[in-house]
């Protein structure tokens, strides 16, 4: 029988490392997908996930017992992604710099179809908040209530960001149809 998230949390709390690995197997694919699309870098996403699970493990051992483990892990991941991106912004000099990083970080064409390459470039054109909202809503399939819990933003603001993201992406991808 597959253990529940709550059961895994209790095993992690007493130091059972295999339980943390099970929790990763269950939740890492969605977190990795989000972090990679947000950061535009598989290596950065990998580091963010390591950081996320180390922080989660530490919190669990201190007594934290999240009601919704997936949303909790997403909240940590979203915050770590924001923090990592802020470092790059400072270095590269704002959003224009972010686009430079996104281009530099785009995997070689041989590793993906041209279509996915273009989607990646289009995502890089979105501002950080709109990209975040779009990915959570349409790629991860969250409700606005879940998104508000994960991001700390209000639902009206999130709806506006998703709407703007969709409009902008339709413009950017229109020529490819």
């Amino acid at each position, binding site marked *: 029988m597959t253990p529940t998230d709550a059961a895994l949390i209790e095993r992690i709390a007493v130091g059972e490392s295999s339980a943390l690995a099970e929790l990763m197997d269950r939740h890492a694919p969605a977190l990795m997908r989000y972090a990679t699309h947000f950061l535009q870098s598989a290596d950065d996403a*990998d580091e963010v996930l390591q*950081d996320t699970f180390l922080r989660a493990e530490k919190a669990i051992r201190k007594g934290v017992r999240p009601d919704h483990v997936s949303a909790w892990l997403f909240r940590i991941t979203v915050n770590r992604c924001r923090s990592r991106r802020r470092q790059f912004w400072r270095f590269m000099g704002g959003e224009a710099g972010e686009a430079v990083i996104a281009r530099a970080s785009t995997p070689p064409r041989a590793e993906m179809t041209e279509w996915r390459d273009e989607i990646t470039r289009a995502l890089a054109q979105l501002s950080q908040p709109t990209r975040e909202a779009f990915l959570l809503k349409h790629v991860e399939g969250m409700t606005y209530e879940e998104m508000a819990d994960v991001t700390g933003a209000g639902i009206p603001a999130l709806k506006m960001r998703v709407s703007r993201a969709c409009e902008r992406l339709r413009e950017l991808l229109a020529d490819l149809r």
Partner: protein
Amino acid sequence: MTDDLLPDDPLLRAVTALRQGERVPAGLAERTRRRARRQATVRRAAIAAGVTATIAAVVVIGPSDSTPPGQVTFALEAPTTSGVSLVGDFNDWDRDRVRLERVGGEWRVTLQLPPGRYRYSYVTDEGQWLSDPDAPPALDEFGAPTSVITIPSET
């Protein structure tokens, strides 16, 4: 309204591609374990050897009791990059001077540094600048995130 994508919405194709999503690189659990162990090792070694490292785990390993003074191993986990350079105050931030070698899932290089305080970063061959995400940001004069290590004098 754009909240839900209708079947004829061209954006649906992009979303479908994105949902097929990214593969988790093999060994995430083991890399996370190694990172936790390095964090503990570095903190113990730094305290024991009197090295003031405002970096944490991913970046510098050692020194231990048997390590010559000033010898520092820099290590970075970047499994998908094709190469990594170390740049810092000790090599005029020249990315051609210190290349890391791939050792298992890591990139490593060991340097002998004279006493002093050094700022440094990693640069991947894809052009990304990386510092330790766990370290408090130590910005250089251009606002770049760097890591910092201080090698004490031997007195």
